[in-house]
């Protein structure tokens, strides 16, 4: 039985208000049976410096990525990871993290690949929780492992591969969520300092540039529905009913945009291209555009 949704007024305007909870709501529901808090950060040690009481840590890299192949873990491993953290198939999961929930949204997207039904984000994430002076603890969370069923990963609904993007060109909009310097191709590597790069700079032709953080307010919460419509509909030209593909550099920042388009604005067919620029910008003979124009 799922834990009740947060009925905050701000959320009611979103397409799927049940996908967000406020810090007040989480503080009031901590420890409730059937609810699990999950922290997912960019920094692998941040959870250890202090986390929301009772929350467990899921690391995007060590827990959710396959250690060898550039892919996500399979259903068996996912079942092990979640079961070992005390999360069952019908547990209500609230994910939160640093940097405007950037990695938290990534974890939520991976949960979606396995069809975990009730997974929500904490609006404002770790930063808002701390800014409000709410409790953090360094005490290890004691979890009783549970059985999580092995569910095969389904990449068809929310994940795009390079071939899908090629087929999408000319048929639907793309959103590039990287910085504008990355989009134009201006930003080049600094000699002698290898970065997480691609062989060619630029963007996928026809993609609109909407840096991911445009969806966030200064306090790390999501902007209101009206503000988001201004960014993505008026600004980027998306129309209701569009099939959209979002990408960034390795698929993390674009998970955040995927969440906004899918759960807050109600687009029904949004895919995250996790290969993103590190694949596209190094692939042979794919079209690339440089400069400010789409």
């Amino acid at each position, binding site marked *: 039985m799922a834990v009740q949704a947060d009925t905050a007024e701000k959320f009611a305007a979103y397409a799927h208000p049940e996908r967000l909870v406020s810090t007040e709501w989480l503080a009031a529901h901590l420890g409730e049976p059937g609810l699990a808090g999950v922290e997912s950060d960019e*920094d692998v040690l941040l959870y*250890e*410096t202090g986390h929301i009481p009772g929350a467990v840590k899921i690391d995007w*890299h*060590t827990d959710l990525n396959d250690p060898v192949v550039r892919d996500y873990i399979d259903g068996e491993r996912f079942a092990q990871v979640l079961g070992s953290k005390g999360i069952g198939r019908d547990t209500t999961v609230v994910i939160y993290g640093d940097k405007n929930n950037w990695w938290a949204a990534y974890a939520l997207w991976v949960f979606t690949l396995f069809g975990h039904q009730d997974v929500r984000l904490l609006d404002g994430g770790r930063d808002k929780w701390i800014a409000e002076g709410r409790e953090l603890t360094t005490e290890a969370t004691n979890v009783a492992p549970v059985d999580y069923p092995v569910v095969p990963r389904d990449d068809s609904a929310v994940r795009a591969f390079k071939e899908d993007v090629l087929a999408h060109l000319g048929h639907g909009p793309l959103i590039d969520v990287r910085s504008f310097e990355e989009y134009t191709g201006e930003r080049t590597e600094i000699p*002698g*300092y290898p970065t997480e790069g691609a062989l060619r700079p630029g963007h996928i032709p026809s993609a609109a540039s909407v840096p991911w953080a445009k969806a966030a307010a200064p306090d790390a919460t999501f902007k209101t529905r009206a503000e988001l419509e201004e960014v993505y509909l008026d600004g980027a030209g998306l129309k209701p009913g569009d099939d959209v593909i979002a990408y960034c550099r390795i698929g993390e920042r674009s998970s955040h945009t995927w969440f906004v388009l899918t759960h807050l604005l109600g687009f029904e067919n949004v895919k995250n291209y996790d290969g993103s620029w590190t694949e596209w910008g190094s692939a042979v003979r794919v079209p690339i555009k440089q400069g400010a124009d789409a």
Partner: protein
Amino acid sequence: MPDALAEIREEFLALSQQERLQLLLEFSNELPELPERYQGHPDLFERVAECQSPVFLFVEIDDDDVVHLFVTAPKESPTTRGFASILVQGLAGLTADEVLAVPDDYPQTLGLTQAVSPLRLRGMAALLGRTKHQVTAKRQVG
């Protein structure tokens, strides 16, 4: 390989993956505050653009040719602070030549690739690279 860096490496390699993260957290907590004379002088510091978080470093070479490394990193970035702290402790008291002789792949040899991911280790490689770069540049000026 300087003794202090070799000892730090041995310490990491003797531990399990989970304990290595704990040790990195200890290093993170030990990153020294900037000495007073450098507080409020952001102009002296170079931003380490390879790190996601705002990390700044500054190298000073004293009259005995000994290198002093100063790094600031926010407490919201404990992993980066840990890497910086390893370098600050491991390079302490070394001469410019000794710092330049530190193998560039030192960060990859700490046994953290699995627990921390190669992606994150690049930030530490960049810290070491930029430190050496500053040592070279400042020695030429001096």
